[in-house]
């Protein structure tokens, strides 16, 4: 049984089919990349998988249980955390409070949650930022905070929506290391990313979306050499060694 199984998912906004007959599965411990041009339905599928959007048709199974149509908070409680493309935080609260509030999901007391938040921030290299109001963070810092909050909810699956956009190359390297490390601790990842270097290097498998449909699903090597993928997304002049 797959950890996460999406079957024939459909979602349209007015006349636009944002996601069309989308099916794929994610196995325990995998890192699955999702790529596709703008408007391909990547973020929409995250919204559907986490209850922020209700599918028109289709099903989503998490550990064999249907979760489509459930509220976002219940889906988080089952162990699926998503980050937002535009990082969503509590702007007037401090960085530590943001993570602490997420940690309260599993911690019975504020003090314990605070301690866990400190640990997570240290791990993320944000220990010095704990007392800063979130609205003062830079965009890359806000994205790192998204990850920190996610970890505090102790997820089984993390859906990362372009957390590396805008990062410096060295920061990208450390983010990649972090994701690999977290995977070895048992967290499964589904990653939307535009930075090809990242997606090619971390993904076990890549799903390519185009106009809401899946046009490819395979290893980075398989996908990047598939002609329709090259045409749709990578561009004709894309050269993959």
């Amino acid at each position, binding site marked *: 049984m797959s950890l996460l199984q999406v079957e024939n998912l459909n979602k349209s906004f007015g006349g636009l089919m944002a996601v069309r007959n989308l099916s794929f599965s994610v196995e325990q411990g995998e890192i699955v990349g999702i790529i596709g041009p703008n408007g391909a339905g990547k973020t929409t599928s995250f919204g559907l998988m*986490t209850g*922020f959007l209700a599918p028109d048709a289709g099903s989503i199974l998490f550990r064999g249980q249907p979760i489509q149509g459930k*509220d*976002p*908070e219940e889906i*988080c*409680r089952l162990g699926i*955390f*998503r980050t*937002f493309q535009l990082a*969503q*935080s*509590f*702007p*007037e*609260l401090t960085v530590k*409070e943001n993570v*602490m*509030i*997420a940690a*309260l*999901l599993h911690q019975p007391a*504020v003090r314990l949650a605070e301690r866990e938040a400190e640990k997570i921030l240290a791990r993320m290299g944000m220990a010095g930022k704990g*007392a800063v109001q979130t609205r003062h963070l830079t965009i890359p810092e806000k994205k790192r905070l998204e990850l920190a*909050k996610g970890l*505090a*909810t102790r997820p089984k699956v993390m859906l990362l929506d372009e957390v590396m956009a805008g990062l410096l190359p060295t920061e990208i390297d450390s983010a990649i290391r972090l994701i690999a490390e977290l995977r070895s601790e048992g967290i499964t990842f589904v990653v939307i990313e535009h930075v090809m270097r990242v997606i090619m290097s971390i993904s076990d498998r890549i799903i390519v979306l185009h106009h809401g449909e899946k046009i490819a699903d395979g290893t980075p090597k398989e996908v990047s050499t598939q002609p329709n993928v090259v045409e749709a997304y990578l561009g004709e002049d894309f050269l993959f060694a």
Partner: protein
Amino acid sequence: MMGRGNWKFFLGLSGALLLLILLPLTFKISSYSLHIFIMVLYFSYLSSAWNLLGGFAGQHSIGHSAFVGLGAYTSTFLFLQIGLNPWIGMVLGAILASLAGLFIGFLSFHYRLRGLYFVLVTIAFAEILAILFSNIRFLGGASGLVVPLKEESLWLFQFRSKVPYYYIILTMLALNIFFCYWVRWTRLGYYLMAIRENEDAARAMGIRVMDYKLLATALSAFLSALGGTFYAQYTYFIDPLTVFGFGLSIEILIYPIVGGVGTVLGPVIGTFVLYPFAELIRTLLGARTAGIHLMVYGAILVAIMILAPRGIVGLFGKRFSPKKEK
């Protein structure tokens, strides 16, 4: 959890409380001045109750008179009809107000009414009750209900002197502040702030937003209704306009806005500054040209909002809000 704030906060608060306790004992205070103090404490109390929902959780209600009115009417009506003890009526009124809060909260939150739409629902709800109570003769109609003076006793919540009322509302306010302080530093407080700051982010981290908003509404309504009974017992007279009216709802939220929305002491500080001031300009200017004191009052409010958009507490930053020092 009490140890989380800095000790200066508690020292300052205890000092202020002590002063207020000693006030009627040490000074020969006129009945009029005492009345002003009672009203300041009363509005501090109602504003703090509003602040739980409007300030901490960011769900701005402009219909809190609904809860005050339900409290005032429940205890008074039951006292008149079946002679029920007002203290018991007070609790029953608070429970009824909580249920009413849950009802409008559920309707609003279930249909995802946020921001201005929630504001409109609360206004409409209070107006409906005002109209309803004005037209039901059984409940006194537009002319209201009079609390009959039976005997002077704590048991019957009736006194000839204002002093006992002063101490009752002071106690209620003190308990309310400590409750708000406790909430502020517990899971509930953090969750409410998270909901205020960003509901989607809160849901994404597993917070059951609906439950917590309803809880905040019920608590806020409960406390407000207790205030309503106090008011009825203090003035011996209630009518739909004064306890359900739009004016009361506005007044309840003016003080937190001036003092600092979402802070533990903001509503209290706002009332202590603004209420006596309004009273002062009313007595100074009220007799001259009709309405001029209201114009001055309005101008001052505008000035405060421009100069201190985060309220008086915001001007002093961390000194008045019990942030931990680190």
